């Protein structure tokens, strides 16, 4: 529908002159649009104040039977598949099997066509490959165009994207382009018989979980963080056994028209970052929270972590206080972890924190408040003062090391 921002309109009359249908008039010092408007949009171009607007509104009802499949955005770093992709494929396989939908991947990059075969070994039914030198670096506009093209071709019911730097940039762009729903950082995904995706995530910034559905539009977008879902099973030698014609059926090479390959974004330089071991990959984590009274007390945490051969991590208040870098933060606004062991010290356990560590194999919690919610997430809860316990525990471990050394 055509509409007017009256406060931007200076009644210059350009639109009225331009309208081929005589649909515009000035009445009571306002431009009025009559039913004669055919939405040709000529007036939009003529208005010097950009006061006219063709609002598409929000599309809301979709015929669900027209949308079938689970599409996974396959992220990679120069051809190396990002592990979150395999986790998303694992979930997509499970969802797809439940409602009898195929599993698709979209793979965008340069010189990656050969690599696409690798994904077939994880049970993906079809891969849409966009391989072009213009896709060498991530550029939101070109990648969005490819993604849009793929969705229009494959019409998936569900689209899963990793909550990475690239995924977080693309998913809201695409969900908005299709005027549909997006749920970020889902911790649990399931599907109803009618193909509605059940999306569960911590919500409202409070200590509460929400179950969210996109019930009347398609596709349904969800982002999931690394280390939240189980990796897809690898089927040995699957792609090697396929014939050439089977491969060409499963891997579709896609091209965009020239008009969709023009970018407003220019990548001048890409610099590798110093490789730091991410807490997401740590096997053992010792984490500290507001129970620490001073920045220098975090040395206890460091010592404990180094004795166990693990890493330290913190909660958001400590990052906000400047006591630790953002890369050390566990939580919704930080990282998700799934180590063999995590010891939380002086952490009360808001859901934003626990949702990002509660799949750890062994959780030991130390806190002086016996009602702290962290004890609900912990396998072993210790009600006590971390300032007493940590030094004694360090001593104990050191003694053992000495005993072992002798």
């Amino acid at each position, binding site marked *: 529908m055509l509409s007017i921002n009256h406060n931007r309109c200076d009644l210059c009359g350009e639109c009225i002159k331009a309208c081929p249908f005589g649909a515009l008039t000035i009445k009571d010092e306002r431009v009025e649009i009559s039913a004669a408007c055919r939405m040709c949009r000529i007036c939009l171009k003529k208005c010097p104040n950009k006061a006219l607007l063709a609002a598409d509104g929000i599309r809301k009802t979709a015929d669900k039977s027209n949308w079938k499949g689970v599409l996974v955005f396959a992220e990679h770093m120069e051809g190396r598949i990002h592990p979150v992709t395999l986790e998303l494929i694992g979930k997509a396989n499970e969802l797809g099997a439940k409602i009898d939908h195929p599993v698709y991947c979209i793979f965008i990059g340069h010189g990656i066509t050969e690599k696409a075969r690798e994904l077939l070994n994880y049970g993906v039914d079809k891969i849409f490959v966009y391989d072009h030198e213009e896709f060498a670096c991530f550029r939101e506009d070109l990648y969005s165009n490819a993604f849009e093209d793929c969705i229009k071709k494959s019409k998936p019911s569900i689209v899963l994207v990793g909550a990475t*730097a690239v995924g977080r940039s693309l998913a809201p762009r695409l969900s908005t382009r299709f005027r549909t729903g997006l749920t970020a950082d889902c911790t649990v995904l399931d599907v109803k018989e009618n193909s509605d995706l059940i999306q569960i995530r911590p919500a409202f910034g409070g200590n509460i979980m929400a179950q969210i559905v996109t*019930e009347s539009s398609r596709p349904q977008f969800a982002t999931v963080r690394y280390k939240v879902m189980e990796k897809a099973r690898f089927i040995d030698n699957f792609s090697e056994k396929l014939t050439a014609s089977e491969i060409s059926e499963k891997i579709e090479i896609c091209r965009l028209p020239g008009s969709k390959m023009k970018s407003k974004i220019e990548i001048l330089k890409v610099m590798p970052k110093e490789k730091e071991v991410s807490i997401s990959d740590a096997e053992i984590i010792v984490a500290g929270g507001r129970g620490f009274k001073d920045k220098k007390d975090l040395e206890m945490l460091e010592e404990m972590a180094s004795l166990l051969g693990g890493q330290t991590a913190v909660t958001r208040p400590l990052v906000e206080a400047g006591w630790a870098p953002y890369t050390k933060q566990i939580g919704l606004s930080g990282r998700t972890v799934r180590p063999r062991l995590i010891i939380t010290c002086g952490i009360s356990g808001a859901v934003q924190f626990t949702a990002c560590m509660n799949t750890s194999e062994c959780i030991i919690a130390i806190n002086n408040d016996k009602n702290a919610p962290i004890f609900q997430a912990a396998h072993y*809860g*210790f009600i006590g003062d971390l300032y007493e316990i940590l030094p004694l525990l360090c001593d104990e471990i050191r003694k053992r090391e000495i005993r072992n050394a002798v």
Partner: protein
Amino acid sequence: MNILVCIKQVPGTNKVEVDEETGVLKRDGVSSKMNPYDLYAIETALRIREKTGGTITAVTMGPSQAQDVIKEAYMMGVDEGYIFSDRRFAGADVLATSYTLSMGIRAIGEFDLILCGKQTTDGDTGQVGPALAEYLEIPHVIWVKGIEEVDENSITVEQDMADCTAIVRLSYPCLITVDKDIAQPRLPSYKKKLKTRNRPVKIMSFDDFADKNEDNYGLSGSATKVERIFPPDSNDDHIMFEGTGEKLSREIYDILVKNKIV
């Protein structure tokens, strides 16, 4: 240069209660503040204006008390501010929020550069920025941690890509979301507070927007729906220990040995 900053008022603490019957936030009596990431967006805008000149407009969406964050933005040096406030905007998800913002921004004017914080501390999703860029049909870059260069036609930024850093040039109009490392935000100044005391926060409602279809805003314009809310899962087989520091540290040690950690 016309710069726009999108800001939001968030709860001062994350201990927010939710009414389990209705799923509505109980915000009454809870202190509120400006989303911390937005301070960095404002600071970035101020530094760009120092170089290029121009004006900075701040916009927010929310109930009328949310104009406090615009007042705070004035105290940091922002020139103009708007609040989009209407009952019909309530209950908006990403899609409806970014749509409402885009309608409000189109009603105000043209902007070269739009800045947003990386994410909010109450929603934590960081989705509204890119979604808004899509509605405004302009390119965006998220997670900007440095500004390399600003000129009349374009901005060159340093983007954090987790495993690498990219130097990216965007021509106007465009939208960026900024991360905390970008610049230390200045404190609101008392002098500016006095000076801007009478500066109004312009209020815009549904009636000021071009799209007059109520169904496109708020809850009815949202594509996602919260079906139910529930307390987080708890781990049922947890074992609790109490006692002196010695006893507890010994017990933790035994668990570490049992699990072959030490």
